[in-house]
């Protein structure tokens, strides 16, 4: 066999950072959107919950909650919080856990893309998915007669804080537990929080002591905060924003400290 020469003459170098991160974000987004189970989690389940609980009186929305308006006005903010939970926490934890297990993170760790660049790519993918989810769920809620109020900026700030908090928790889980354990735990947390996180069941249905604890959960704080703005037309809900900020700071710091790449 003859040797063809010149093709491999070394010409090493990383691509410009922005190009690397854009490429990584694009790939991560495609991976997220192509994955069947992920779509079930991020699109099908929240939509079904919205339609089901919005149209049928399965959960008894209390008189006070109803007094605020339509059932969908109560549900829509909770479902948006659930969307953040599904993508930033559950979806990201499972995907990252398996990437770690299959050596994807290890492989990319020796590429020119810095580790923080990889994390930027993941965050972009989460934000793109979340934007698509928000568009879908908003359209469905509007079709069900939702009339959102309040300041969109406050909504965006709350959603971003919630994304940061739940991403931190998801990455902490993915970077420390085995992939199978992450899969099981992330799904379990998702299911539990649908019912106990103030998403479809009003917090008022729980005893006061339980409610005090539940209010400190990130998904609950996000759902309640969004409700105060979108349903009640209130100003920026600082207590909930504070809870989310605390979770974001603690979970991201812990993830940065304990995340194992292999």
């Amino acid at each position, binding site marked *: 066999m003859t040797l063809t020469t010149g093709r491999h*003459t070394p*010409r*090493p170098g990383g691509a410009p950072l922005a190009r690397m991160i854009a490429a990584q974000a694009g790939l991560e987004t495609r991976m997220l959107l192509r994955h069947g189970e992920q779509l079930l989690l991020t699109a099908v389940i929240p939509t079904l919950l919205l339609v089901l609980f919005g149209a049928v009186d399965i959960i008894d929305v209390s008189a006070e909650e109803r007094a605020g308006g339509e059932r969908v006005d109560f549900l829509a903010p909770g479902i948006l919080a659930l969307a953040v939970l599904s993508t930033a926490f559950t979806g990201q934890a499972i995907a990252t856990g398996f990437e770690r297990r299959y050596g994807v993170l*290890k492989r990319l760790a020796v590429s020119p893309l810095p580790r923080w660049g990889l994390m930027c790519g993941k965050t972009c993918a989460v934000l793109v998915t979340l934007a698509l989810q928000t568009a879908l769920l908003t359209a469905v809620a509007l079709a069900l007669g939702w009339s959102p109020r309040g300041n969109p900026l406050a909504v965006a700030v709350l959603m971003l804080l919630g994304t940061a908090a739940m991403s931190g928790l998801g990455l902490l889980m993915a970077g420390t537990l085995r992939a199978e354990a992450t899969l099981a735990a992330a799904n379990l947390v998702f299911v539990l929080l649908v019912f106990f996180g103030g998403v479809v069941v009003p917090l008022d249905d729980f005893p006061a002591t339980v409610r005090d604890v539940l209010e400190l959960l990130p998904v609950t704080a996000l759902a309640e905060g969004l409700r105060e703005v979108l349903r009640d037309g209130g100003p920026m809900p600082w207590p909930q924003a504070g809870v989310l900020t605390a979770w974001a700071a603690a979970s991201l710091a812990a993830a940065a400290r304990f995340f194992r790449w292999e």
Partner: protein
Amino acid sequence: MRNAGAEPAVEALGLVKRYGRTTAIDGLDLTVARGTVAAVLGPNGAGKTTTIELCEGYRAPDAGHLRVLGLDPVTEGPALRPRIGVMLQDGGVYPGVRAEEMLRHVARLHAHPLDVDDLIERLGLGSCGRTPYRRLSGGQRQRLALALAVVGRPELVFLDEPTAGLDPQARHATWQLVRELRADGVTTVLTTHLMDEAEELSDDVAIVDSGRVIARGTPADLCRGGGSDVLRFSGRPGLDLISLRAALPLGSEASEPSPGSYRITGDVGPRLLATVTAWCAQHGVLADRITTQRHTLEDVFLELTGKELRS
């Protein structure tokens, strides 16, 4: 400014790496000159992968001196990583990504990547370019991993068991690629436990066992040092061995272990064979069943590392 190219591609002195109470690498020395192919050969658990992963900067050695392209792989990792290509032993690819998609992605992370279409064709990945990674065969995964290692036009390539599980065609395509890398001045460090692979491809071989280099040299050097080669032939019994020895080059030895069966040791090559057949012709001997047996790297390897099975 460093004087690029002056220092060896890999320079390891007295490397030690422990995992808990087990010592994976125990005072390992390894030097790989620029533009050469070095094979790290050893039984399972000898420390081959650990050695490579120290060079790739995955972890810091517990002791010893290590420079890769003149850089500390851990503290100067960001400067080193764009210059190396890495093929891990298993995967490192998203299960849902398509083969071609992954290759294009890694190409995009580099400033001057190879032509992806050409690489796909050369490694026979065309038929599975649209196939998700999880549905690729073992051989296709190996070839994709190799493509990922070279697509960024690195100066130095680490290949951890590049041909494990490949069919002969794919193995030869891989060998061909390593030869092309060498011809273009790329340094390659590969691990293998295939002796013929090390003999075929490498300029230098380091045989590693229990975390240390127990022998090193060119494949030819190692074979020479390990014992002598043998030429055997059959003829009528009782040939004049004294006359035969006199005809042989210095350092050769002739014997008749059993009647009519002759054994000649020494530097077995075309010249020795010609000398023996010429002597036979002079003496009216029809040499029958002539065999030459050269000492292979495998013999050396087994002599050095023992024949018992490793876990």
